Structures are given as structure tokens and as C-alpha cells.
């Protein structure tokens, strides 16, 4: 797995942890422990997304600022898969 693929994988893992914690916290809003996990992984994910967008392509238009050309449209589509 290349550096780019590894970073995308790590973003996927961190964001999945957040998806799980969000649903859990929706029904357990008083769980401070889960809230702390959420805060921790949210920071990590935001940092990795920013890094990925700077190095490769924006994963969301909020990271699409650029001093050169518009890169959002040329970014790979998620359903293409590695073997495209």
C-alpha cells in the first residue's frame, strides 16, 4: 500500500470510529468517556483530511482552496476502485 492509500485508509478508519461514536452518543449523550474519544479522533481525522487534501486531492470542497487550478472535479471518484 502506497503512502497515499495508507493515509486514505487511516482517514477511513478514523471517520468510521467517529460514525460509531456519533450514533452511540446520540442515544447516550451523558457518556463523558465516549465524548472524550470523539474529541480525540475528531482532531486526528481533521488533521489527516487536511494533509491528504494538500498532498493529493480535496476529499471535500471545504479543502478545495487552491492558488492554481480547480482540483475538485479531477479528483478520482470513490466508486472507481483501485483497479480502475
Amino acid at each position, binding site marked *: 500500500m502506497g503512502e497515499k492509500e495508507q493515509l486514505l485508509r487511516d482517514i477511513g478508519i478514523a471517520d468510521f470510529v467517529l460514525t460509531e461514536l456519533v450514533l*452511540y452518543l446520540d442515544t447516550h449523550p451523558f457518556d463523558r468517556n*465516549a465524548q472524550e474519544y470523539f474529541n480525540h479522533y475528531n482532531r486526528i481525522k481533521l488533521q489527516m483530511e487536511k494533509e491528504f487534501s494538500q498532498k493529493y486531492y480535496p476529499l471535500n470542497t471545504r479543502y478545495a482552496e487552491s492558488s492554481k487550478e480547480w482540483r475538485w472535479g479531477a479528483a478520482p471518484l470513490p466508486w472507481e476502485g483501485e483497479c480502475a
Partner: protein
Amino acid sequence: MHEHWNDNNFDDFPVAMAYVPWQKFERLCEDLEKGYCAGTIFPELDKPFTGRRCV
């Protein structure tokens, strides 16, 4: 909404209704990448399909 952790005493529950027990979360799975592949980071919810009677 109050804290529910101990509201799992099913003997006290009225009939003619369905209840799912509250999940009590203590820890995340140790290997988060494994949890990602399994589809949950909560060990207590990890219930894979085997297609066979032996668990």
C-alpha cells in the same frame, strides 16, 4: 432525558411493548482497523454471520 445504564431490569417492564437493552460501553475494540473491517468498534456488538450452527 436521564442516564439509563441501569434501566435494564426487564421484570419491571410493562407488557405489550418491545425493549432493546441499553448498550453499556466501556472500551473500544483494541485494533480499530479490525473493528473497521468487522463493521463495528464495539466488541459487544460484534456478531458476525457464520452460516453454521457452531458459534
